[in-house]
């Protein structure tokens, strides 16, 4: 059986290597739009800042592909899929047949329609080639457009390289999809403390410069700069799937076996729309751990094992200099349209901050900065178990005499929330 994988990212490689470890008989082929073995996009900002060497960015070596009998086709971008003939066509005119096709081409960087965004000195931090260009670029003042995880990490890396860094965010606080307003504001204050200028509720109107960038104009000010990093998010690549008539929503639609609506075509990674594993709602969490799990599920289903993908996990962290923050589940904005009584428990101790969001007495999300983040795993477990916090709050002190081994987690939760105090 010939398995064709489009995309040489984390999800695609997970499919290929899981398949080849389980069964050597399949013919596995990966089509990559780039010319390098698998690398880790998560480590690119750290590569930019010099914390990670180039050799450590790669997750696989060329020898690994040979050892596992995986054929690699470099520098070819698949432009169309013919599900009737079971054949794909690339931009270089290459035609490849398949028995099972896996779409793992991930997402595309969203480039906002800003005037002058095609000038020299404008970079992104999503692909290795782009990041290398940015790394070898010399400048003194950088503007990062967008304050998602990549934007924050890129800003930190550029600051370490000695740039004067500005972050411009359209929303009222930084990391708007991951953190609520108080947490976002605290993180912004921390960034300011490290010397990074954070400009929120600002819209970039145009980028000035004849050939090379000279300044960025927002609706509030004009910043003179020589480097611009576009970090405005990643949109799932659905255009290719539509050529095969695959159903798409925000991302490629898949069932629990990670099959698309067209037989023998699977999809995994950043390009699919899945469900939240905890709530079962439609969700898109384009994160590394989800890509790895989805890749494993696709490989198992191709091999005929009946495994189901239960959903993606909403967990992310942000880290810059000495500030650490983590978030999971829903933000308070995400609960606004839900029925039920929502409650927020906040704890603050200097720079440390904890925010837990409860819906009808059950944990559905939380954010933490600093020391509180170290125990966030316990809150995630509480969300999964759907622990009744009201009950823990009222009974926490009376758990004492029973020494009930089944209640240790609840005991620790009570300790985090400070019910005993």
């Amino acid at each position: 059986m010939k398995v064709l994988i489009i995309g040489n990212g984390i999800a695609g490689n997970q499919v290929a290597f899981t398949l080849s470890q389980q069964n050597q008989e399949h013919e596995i082929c990966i089509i990559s739009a780039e010319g390098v073995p698998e690398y880790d996009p998560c480590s690119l900002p750290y590569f930019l800042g010099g914390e990670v060497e180039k050799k450590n960015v790669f997750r696989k070596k060329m020898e690994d592909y040979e050892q596992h009998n995986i054929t690699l086709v470099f520098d070819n971008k698949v432009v169309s899929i013919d599900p009737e003939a079971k054949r794909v066509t690339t931009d270089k005119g290459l035609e490849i047949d398949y028995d099972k096709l896996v779409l793992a081409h991930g997402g595309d960087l969203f480039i906002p329609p800003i005037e002058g965004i095609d000038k020299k000195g404008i970079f992104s931090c999503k692909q290795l080639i782009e990041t290398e260009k940015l790394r070898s670029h010399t400048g003194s003042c950088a503007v990062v457009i967008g304050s998602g995880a990549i934007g924050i990490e890129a800003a930190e890396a550029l600051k370490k390289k000695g740039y004067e860094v500005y972050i411009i965010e359209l929303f009222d606080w930084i990391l708007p999809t991951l953190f609520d307003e108080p947490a976002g504001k605290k993180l912004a204050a921390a960034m300011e403390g490290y010397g990074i200028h954070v400009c929120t509720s600002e819209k970039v109107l145009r980028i000035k410069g004849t050939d090379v960038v000279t300044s960025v104009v927002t609706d509030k000010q004009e910043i003179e700069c020589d480097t611009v990093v576009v970090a405005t998010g990643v949109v799932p690549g659905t255009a290719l799937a539509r050529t095969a008539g695959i159903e798409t929503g925000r991302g490629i639609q898949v069932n629990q076996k990670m099959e698309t609506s067209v037989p023998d075509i699977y999809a995994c990674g950043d390009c699919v729309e899945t469900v939240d594993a905890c709530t079962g709602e439609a969700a898109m969490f384009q994160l590394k751990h989800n890509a790895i799990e989805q890749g494993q599920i696709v490989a198992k289903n191709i091999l005929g094992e009946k495994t189901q993908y239960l959903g993606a996990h909403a967990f992310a962290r942000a880290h810059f200099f000495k500030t650490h923050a983590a978030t999971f589940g829903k933000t308070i904005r995400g609960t606004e349209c839900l029925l039920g009584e929502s409650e927020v428990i906040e704890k603050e101790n200097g720079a440390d901050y904890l925010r837990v969001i409860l819906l009808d007495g059950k944990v559905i999300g939380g954010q933490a900065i600093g020391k509180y983040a170290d125990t966030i795993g316990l809150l995630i477990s509480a969300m999964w178990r759907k622990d009744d916090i009201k009950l823990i709050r009222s009974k926490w002190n009376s758990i004492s005499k029973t020494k009930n081994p089944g209640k240790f987690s609840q005991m620790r939760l009570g300790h985090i929330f400070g019910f005993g105090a």
Partner: protein
Amino acid sequence: MKTKREQLRIDPTKCTACHLCTMACAIKHHGIHGMLNPHLSRIKIHQYKPQEVNVPEVCMACENAPCIKVCPVNARMRISNGSVVTNVSLCIGCHACVYICPVGSPEVHPETGQTLTCDMCAEDKAGPWCVIACQEGALTLSDKDSLTIETARNQAGRYKRMHA
């Protein structure tokens, strides 16, 4: 996927929080850390005074370890004895493994910011030092069956029946 790892079996009801295990761990690994500091122990004891219970906390080397998946620089890895450890030459100290850990196990080195977890005293034939140090029987080594998800679930179910 079965990871044949010897597991530390923790019995919190026997723990007296004497911290011999944390001392043993700190002594065992002081060469790697470059300092002898009980706060760098890979086993921690949580004391809950109102409940009069002490819970030792150590990396359980989960079969489906989430820390391996979330690490942005692929520094978390499973070594030959089944333990999951941090490769200090790669770790950038982002704490992702600390946050995702279901037991909150990884300890952070205060100077390097890198994380530390139990390696079951990998190269030592005598076995984990914390088990040798524990006088109360709160830490024992279960080498008969590795703690897989199934056995853990069965045990959890048994607890539930006992205390329902």
